[in-house]
């Protein structure tokens, strides 16, 4: 029996493995040798360029201008990584005030933490569902609403009647902040995932904008670099997702043909045109849409464009999940006498959305990369900052080094996400018994 449990000696170990996978036949051997030759040649050349002959530091003159003559001499032979050492703060954080750049740095860490937290299953479970928690969240929402209502009344009074209302606005502003904290705390307890997302995104906005908690205010015009890329992609996903679910449900609706048609037109229209045309629309047409005197910030306009664009694509992903669900689920829910929204919220969506997490992550990777298109409408994302760094005369001819660094940053984020999505996919397939 013992000789049956062990494979024959000639089939295991590194040498049989090599024989099978690299030298299986004459053709395979030829391919292996050719590839080894090519890979060795390329790797040695890259190593010589990127490490051995590379220049890591350049001297500066008394005006603080980099003296890149040694880099120019080494051009073609060795990389000039000094450009990254000189410009990395500009590329990563843009024109954010230099002394305050710890804020965007924390923002990047928060984004990464948010992504990592989202991959933990426990976060997506239901939290403590008790009336007390619900009241905390509702009270928070009420306080925020109260402040906004007062603000609205004040605006109406000021614009319409030219008068100021005798309301305690300072107190209301404090209550508003308290309300936001209560709401996030309540959400954290009720649905941890939503709480984590709302809380982190709120914290990110606080850090970027400043103006409260003793942080110096920073105008949106000074934001730039990696935070912009992450904000556009993540806020885009967070806001597009609820819209996408509604549009997908609308497109599947049998009772409301007009709504269905509306959803179909929206999705197909957006999916038929390139993102750049939607971004152009946001940059040149959006100002025409608004009543005179109202200026919407350029970043916000691009963000709205990304949300509208992402929603159409996500809607198709969600629709895929809805279609994959057996019809029996709907029929069973109907037989239980559930209303449409009860059925959708408690039976259909939880199952359908679980199915589409892997394609959802893949779509997100796509948006993460696509945010680089805002370069064309002149927003300062990671790629744009790279180009701006290259416009500095001493460094102009070292674009390869900068582009490689930017590519490495994108690869770190995208590869991490695609690994996660693939792992999840395998898990799902296993669970389905395939």
């Amino acid at each position: 029996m013992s000789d049956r449990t062990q494979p024959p000696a000639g089939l295991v170990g590194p040498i049989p493995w090599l024989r099978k996978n690299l030298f299986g036949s004459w053709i395979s051997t030829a391919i292996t040798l050719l590839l080894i030759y090519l890979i060795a040649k390329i790797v040695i050349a890259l190593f010589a360029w990127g490490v051995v002959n590379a220049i890591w530091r350049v001297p500066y003159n008394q005006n603080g201008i980099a003296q890149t003559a040694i880099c120019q001499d080494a051009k073609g032979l060795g990389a000039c990584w000094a450009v990254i050492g000189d410009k990395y703060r500009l590329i990563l954080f843009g024109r954010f005030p230099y002394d305050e750049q710890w804020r965007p740095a924390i923002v990047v860490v928060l984004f990464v933490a948010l992504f990592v937290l989202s991959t933990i299953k426990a976060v997506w479970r239901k939290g403590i569902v008790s009336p007390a928690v619900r009241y905390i969240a509702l009270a928070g929402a009420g306080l925020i609403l109260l402040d906004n209502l007062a603000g609205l009344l004040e605006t109406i009074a000021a614009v319409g009647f030219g008068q100021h209302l005798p309301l305690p606005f300072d107190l209301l502003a404090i209550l508003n902040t308290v309300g936001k904290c209560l709401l996030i705390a309540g959400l954290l307890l009720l649905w941890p995932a939503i709480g984590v997302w709302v809380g982190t995104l709120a914290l990110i906005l606080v850090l970027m904008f400043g103006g409260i908690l003793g942080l110096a205010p920073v105008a949106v015009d000074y934001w730039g670099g990696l935070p912009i890329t992450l904000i556009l992609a993540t806020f885009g996903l967070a806001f597009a997702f609820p819209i996408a679910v509604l549009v997908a449900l609308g497109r599947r609706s049998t009772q409301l043909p007009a709504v269905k048609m509306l959803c179909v037109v929206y999705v197909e229209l957006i999916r038929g045109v390139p993102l750049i045309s939607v971004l152009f629309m946001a940059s040149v047409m959006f100002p025409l849409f608004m009543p005179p005197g109202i200026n919407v910030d350029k970043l916000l306009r691009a963000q709205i464009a990304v949300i509208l664009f992402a929603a159409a694509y996500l809607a198709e992903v969600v629709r895929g999940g809805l279609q994959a669900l057996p019809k029996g689920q709907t029929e069973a829910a109907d037989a239980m006498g559930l209303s449409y929204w009860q059925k959708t919220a408690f039976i259909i969506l939880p199952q359908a959305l679980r199915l589409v997490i892997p394609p959802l992550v893949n779509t997100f990777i796509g948006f993460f990369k696509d945010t680089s298109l805002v370069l064309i409408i002149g927003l300062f994302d990671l790629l744009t900052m790279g180009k701006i760094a290259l416009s500095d005369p001493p460094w102009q001819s070292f674009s390869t080094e900068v582009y490689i660094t930017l590519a490495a940053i994108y690869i770190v984020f995208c590869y991490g996400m695609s690994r996660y999505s693939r792992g999840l996919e395998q898990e799902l397939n296993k669970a389905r018994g395939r």
Partner: protein
Amino acid sequence: MSATAADPRVTAARKAPKRRMRVSWSDPRFRALVWQFIILGIVGGIVWYLVFNTNKNLAARHIATGFAFLHRVAGIPIGESMISYEPSVDTYGRALWIGVLNTLKVAGIGMVLATILGTLIGIGRLSGNWLMAKLTGFYVEVMRDIPLLLQLLFWYTALQGLPAPRQAWRVAELMDGATFHLFHETFANWQFGSGMLLSNRGSRIPILNWEPADNWILAAFVVGAIGTFLWNGHANRRQEATGIRPKVWPVAFGLLLVLPLAVWAGFGAPLNFEIPTLRGFNFQGGGTISPEYFALLLGLVLYTAGYIAEIVRSGIQAVAQGQWEAAGALGLRRGAILRHIVLPQALRVVIPPMTSQYLNLTKNSSLAVAIGYQDVVSIANTTLNQTGQAVEGIAVIMAVFLTISLSISLFMNWYNAHIALVGR
């Protein structure tokens, strides 16, 4: 036939009687109607509000509306165009049409090249050779993780870094020793390899001077293609009737290759390439590929090939191993198995995602605007900056891409239906 009609199980059940809709909240149909009115009202209201604001803003800024500008003289300098164009004479309409043609030029060729490269890489990923499989896997991963725009900028800068025409690289000289020797031996007489030049003013390639003899060669090729098609049909009929398939490939070889070659030889084997040569600071003769077009095409092809490779791989893997074995047991040869059993099944899996990749490639070609290739987006962007007619400019871009997208979808859907499994 009549028996089935009389079968009580087949006759349709009586339809539920149509009830009139009650004007009451408890009637679902009434509720649905009300909700639709409300939603349409909200959407319509928003659209009306935006249009209202836009008209007001346009009037305040004295910007004209309508497409009359299409007939005005454009004055946009256009670097490369497939039809004649004179900036001081021709209209915006013609400039935009050139943009459309340029978009189609890069998208069409890009699709073909990306499909070829993607298929090769996809097959490479399934190779039994571990190194090959890992290397192609690495390619796919890297291409999919770097934004296309970054890749385009990289290639464009790389092409800009090429030497000036005077020191242009000859493609043949870029190869090392042995390869060059072989290449040179083969093509030296035609001056082909040394005629392909890379410089920062674009890549120069030799082009064929079209002569009357070439018309006859083309005609011979067309005749050969028709003949091959007819012979294939004949072979199909013979196979249906007798079960034995006459060989097709010798006929195809003869008609498609030998016949045109014979005509060519009959005319004295003329071969007249126009070879680019250096005159002064630039090249004369030959065809040019501009650096913008080359960078865009290269970026699009390499990027899209990464996605197509994954589609091809999953398509081939989707065909169960048992299909190969069963077909082998029936006595089919390997080529026949691939053509008649495996590929038709793999294609069915591959076509829908491939369609969306073609659409993506076309839409991604709009990134041309970032590297200065004058596609329709770039020219429309210049137009809207010059005329201020943003609404019309963006409408043109969207209309062009919607038309292209719809045409590709329609064609691929037709093709998909053509090869689809005819189910129950």
